[in-house]
Every structure is written in C-alpha cells, then in structure tokens.
C-alpha cells in the first residue's frame, strides 16, 4: 500500500521535474517570463491521448506529442519575440487561456469537459508499462534523457548565447547573434519537453480533461523554478522533490481530501510570495528575474 503510494509520488515528481527543467530553459536561462508552459503540457497530453485512442503505437504518440508542442512553441515565439517583461507574460498567459478554451469547446475533438477516458498504458517494443512500477522506470528513463539533453544544451555555446540574451539582449545583438532565432529555439525546445511530459501524464493517469490544464497547475511549476533558483538545474531538482512532497504531508495530518487541494495551492502561493520577498534568487539561483 505505502509502496504503491510512494511509486505514485515518484512518478508525479518525475513529470513535474521534466516540466520544471524545461521551464527553467525559458525563464531561467533565456529570461523569458513564459506563462504558457501549461498550454504546451496540454497540447502534448491531448495529442498523445488522441493518437493513442486511435491505435497509434506509444512511441509515435510520445514523440509526436513533443513535436506538436514544439511546433506551437515555435508558432508562439514568432509574434511574441519583440515583447518583453510583463507584456510577454500576458501574451503567453493569453495563449494558455486560448488552448484551455479550445480543449473545453472543441467537443468534436476533445469531448470538452467530459474529457478523454481510457487512454492506454504505454507499451514499447513489446514491453508493456502497465504496472506503476514499470511506468516509474519509463519515467526515470525519460527524465534522465531530458536532463542530459537540457544540461548539454545550457552548457553549450547555444546555452551561453541564451544567457547572454537574458543578461543583455542588445549587447548580444551587437555581437552579431540572431537573438530572435535563439529565443524561438529556446521556447520551442522548452515546449517540446513540456509536450512529452504531457504525453507521460496522459498515459499514466489514463484520463485527461481541460481542468488538468488550468492556471492552478502552473503555480507549482513556477514555484519550483523560482524556489530552486533561476538558471540552476540542481536547484530545480531539489525544489521539485521538496515542493511535491511537502503538501502531501497535509494528508497525514488528517485534512479531508476536499480541503487538501485548496490548501496545497495556498501553501505554494505563500511560499512563492515569501521567496520573492526574502530570497529572490531562490536557493541555488545565480540571477534574479528582471
């Protein structure tokens, strides 16, 4: 019993981890205040679920979820490239709402508020990942690969250019870098990983509906990124573990489950406010948001 619960928590931590390190790529490394991450997560989840329900094998669903999300990330980056600061935040937030609105209203495709039930558990090369333990292993593999790719990216010359854009975009332009293109790549890559996280989520829970992809879901990821510290992958990993596990303790203190949801949000929001006031760089952060 307790084992099953722990495995469930670890899978959740895994999905949050992929979301958080990919968001780190845009907010932390490139300095783009991207509030559209949940939309890419939703696009990935819906793409993967719809394909799988139509009999497409998991591997293709999984990759297409990422590629589709990446495509939308690129699409979003083109018009928003000139915007900065709070205007970029608003535009990406607008994108989240438009995607939410479409998942809710395009009932012919997404079944709207009824959601998509019965998403098959993944199977790869004849191996089935239907038990939670095997799914955990699959999640671990995906995390490891994503982490290595992102770490490689941020350490590469490309990553350094992204950091330069964050610190001083004009100066980076003067040095002859095409900052628009770099920012587009960063947003698209980040969206790709959000998309595959969405695919994992859909195949793990086996049911998705629009309510899983609202602003409320953005708060935990944003808190993880900021508490862990901008531009720090290590901080993000530590923060994911701490922040996903922390509200779980509410269940053991004996709060009814109807109160756990709102309490969780209140805890996250309070942590976020306190961190912004008292420790704006987070615990392992190198830079401050501006």
């Amino acid at each position, binding site marked *: 019993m307790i084992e099953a619960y722990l495995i469930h928590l670890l899978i959740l931590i895994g999905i949050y981890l992929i979301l958080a390190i990919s968001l780190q790529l845009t907010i932390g490394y490139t300095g783009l205040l991207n509030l559209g991450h949940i939309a890419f997560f939703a696009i990935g989840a819906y793409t993967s679920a719809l394909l799988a329900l139509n009999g497409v094998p998991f591997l293709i669903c999984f990759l297409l979820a990422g590629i589709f999300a990446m495509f939308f990330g690129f699409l979003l980056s083109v018009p928003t490239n000139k915007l900065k600061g709070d205007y970029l935040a608003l535009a990406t937030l607008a994108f989240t709402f438009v995607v939410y609105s479409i998942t809710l209203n395009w009932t012919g495709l997404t079944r709207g508020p009824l959601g998509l039930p019965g998403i098959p558990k993944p199977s790869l090369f004849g191996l089935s990942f239907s038990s939670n333990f095997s799914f955990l292993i699959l999640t671990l593999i995906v995390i490891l690969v994503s982490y290595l790719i992102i770490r490689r990216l941020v350490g590469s010359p490309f990553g350094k250019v992204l950091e330069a854009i964050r610190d001083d975009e004009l100066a980076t332009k003067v040095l002859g870098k095409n900052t628009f293109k770099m920012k587009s790549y960063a947003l698209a890559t980040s969206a790709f990983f959000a998309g595959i996280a969405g695919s994992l989520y859909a195949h793990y829970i086996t049911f998705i509906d629009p309510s899983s992809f609202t602003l409320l879901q953005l708060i935990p990821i944003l808190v993880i990124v900021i508490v862990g510290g901008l531009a720090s992958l290590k901080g993000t990993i530590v923060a994911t573990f701490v922040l996903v596990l922390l509200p779980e303790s509410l269940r053991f203190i004996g709060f009814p489950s109807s109160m756990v949801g709102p309490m969780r949000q209140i805890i996250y*929001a309070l942590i976020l406010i306190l961190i912004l006031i008292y420790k704006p760089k987070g615990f392992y952060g190198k830079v401050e948001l501006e």
Partner: protein
Amino acid sequence: MVFTQLLINGLIAGAIYALVASGFSLIYATSKFIHFAHGVTIAFSSYILYFLFAVVGLNFGFSVIFAIIFASVLGLLMNLLVFKQLRKRKTSGVILLIASFALLILLESLILLLFGAEVKTVGYIKVAGGLEVLGAIITPLQIFIVISSFVLLGLLFLFMKKTKIGKAMRAVSDNKDVAEIVGISSEKIYNWAFIIGSAIAGIAGILVGLEQSLDPTMGTSLMIKGFTGAIIGGIGSVPGAILGSFLLGFVENFGIWFLPSGYKDAIAFVLLFIFLLFRSKGILGIKREVEK
C-alpha cells in the same frame, strides 16, 4: 432583433468590464505593474455580500457598504504586506506581477476553503421580466448596472481631474521621481490607488453578484476581461481602459454571432493578442517602453 440585443448585451458587459479595467488601470498607472489579484478582490466582495446578506441576514444596504470597505482594505493590505515589501528591494515589475499572480491563487483558494466550490446566488433581486427596447430585452437590474457604472466612471474622472489626491496620482503616474521632488510621497499615492481601485473592484463585484451566480474562479475571468480592456484601450490610462472595455464587450457579444458562446473568453484573448502584437500601446496610443 438580434442586432439590438447583442448591442445591449455588449453594453452591459462593457459597463462591468469598464469598472474592472478602470480600477486595474489606476493601480497600473501609479505603481507600474500588472495587478492580477485585482480579480480576486472582485470575487471576495461578491462573496462578502453573499455571506452578510444571504447567510447572516443583515440589511442589504449595510452588506453592500461593508463589502466595498472590505474590498478596499483587502487591496490596501495586499499593497502594504506584499508589494511594498517588494518595492523596498527595488524589484522589477515582473516580480510584482508574479507576486500578484500568487496572491490571486492564494485568495481564490481561500474562497474555495471558506465558501466551498458550489455555485452561490445573492438572491436580493427576484428574477423580473425584462423591458423591451427596440425589440431587445433588458432587465431593470441591467439598466441599473449600466447607469451605476457610468456614474462611477464619471465620478472617477472628476476625482482624477479635480481633487488633490487625483492630481498627485496623475503626477506619480507621469513621473514618479519628479513627483517626489515636489513633495508627493509615492508610497502614499500607491496606497490611495489601491484603496480607490479596489473599492471600484468591490462595486463591480457587487453588481456582478446581483446579476450572476458566484463561483470561486469568477475573479480570474473578470480580471482577464479587465486587463484585456485596459491594454487594448491603452494601459495606464483610465479613459483608455473604459474605451477598451466597451470595445471588448461589443466584440465579444458580436463574436458569438459566429462562434459557439463557449468561445467568449477565447475571443477576448485573441483580441488581446492582436493588440499586443500590432498596437501594444493600445487605441489611445499611450507611450510606454514595451519593445526593446
């Protein structure tokens, strides 16, 4: 006539959005950040009205006044406890925006904890038959909403033009440093902006609460409309916010002539998007450094 009905619906929606947007814009103009939690001030005021009037059973007038005061105090407290602390460290508007977003989620969850998720109604005005105007139907309450919105916006305009605090607010919004040199305390002005802006939000919350049922996330959706109105009108300008809000009200209501009504929120966002991309300074063209 469908056309006049949509026109009237647009006017009613616009009247509410204008109240939301003008309070939001007032706060933006002075303290220069996007105050997301403005939406939850509206929701809280509706819920306080519901609680005092429908649950406790107090006199309606008293409940209304208390709800407005509550909204004002809530706004002021947010400013003093969170935003003032952040400003002390000279943080950027983006940090204030994230903090305000966190406050929105925090207070919205608090409403959920206190009042539960089920839909509530204030039930002060019994559903009355509508009046017919040029083939369209409008209820007396809706006429009251439109009139009170116009009166309030007029008062706000006079306040900004004639009173000492209003003038000081415009000075701070124009150039904070110069305003401080001539002896205006910007922190004091921020407090006033939050008090007045949140009071207007409180009134908007009451009007919405009379017209529709309450649910914990109502603040977020109204907030979206409010800042969309403010941005397309020209952010930081109260007349711009009012203009943008009415435009939004009309576009939304005429939009559902072509699209299913579920897309109403999406229409608002598409409009916001278009303005952010092509005319980020809004209709009135308020100059502000948006682009690098």
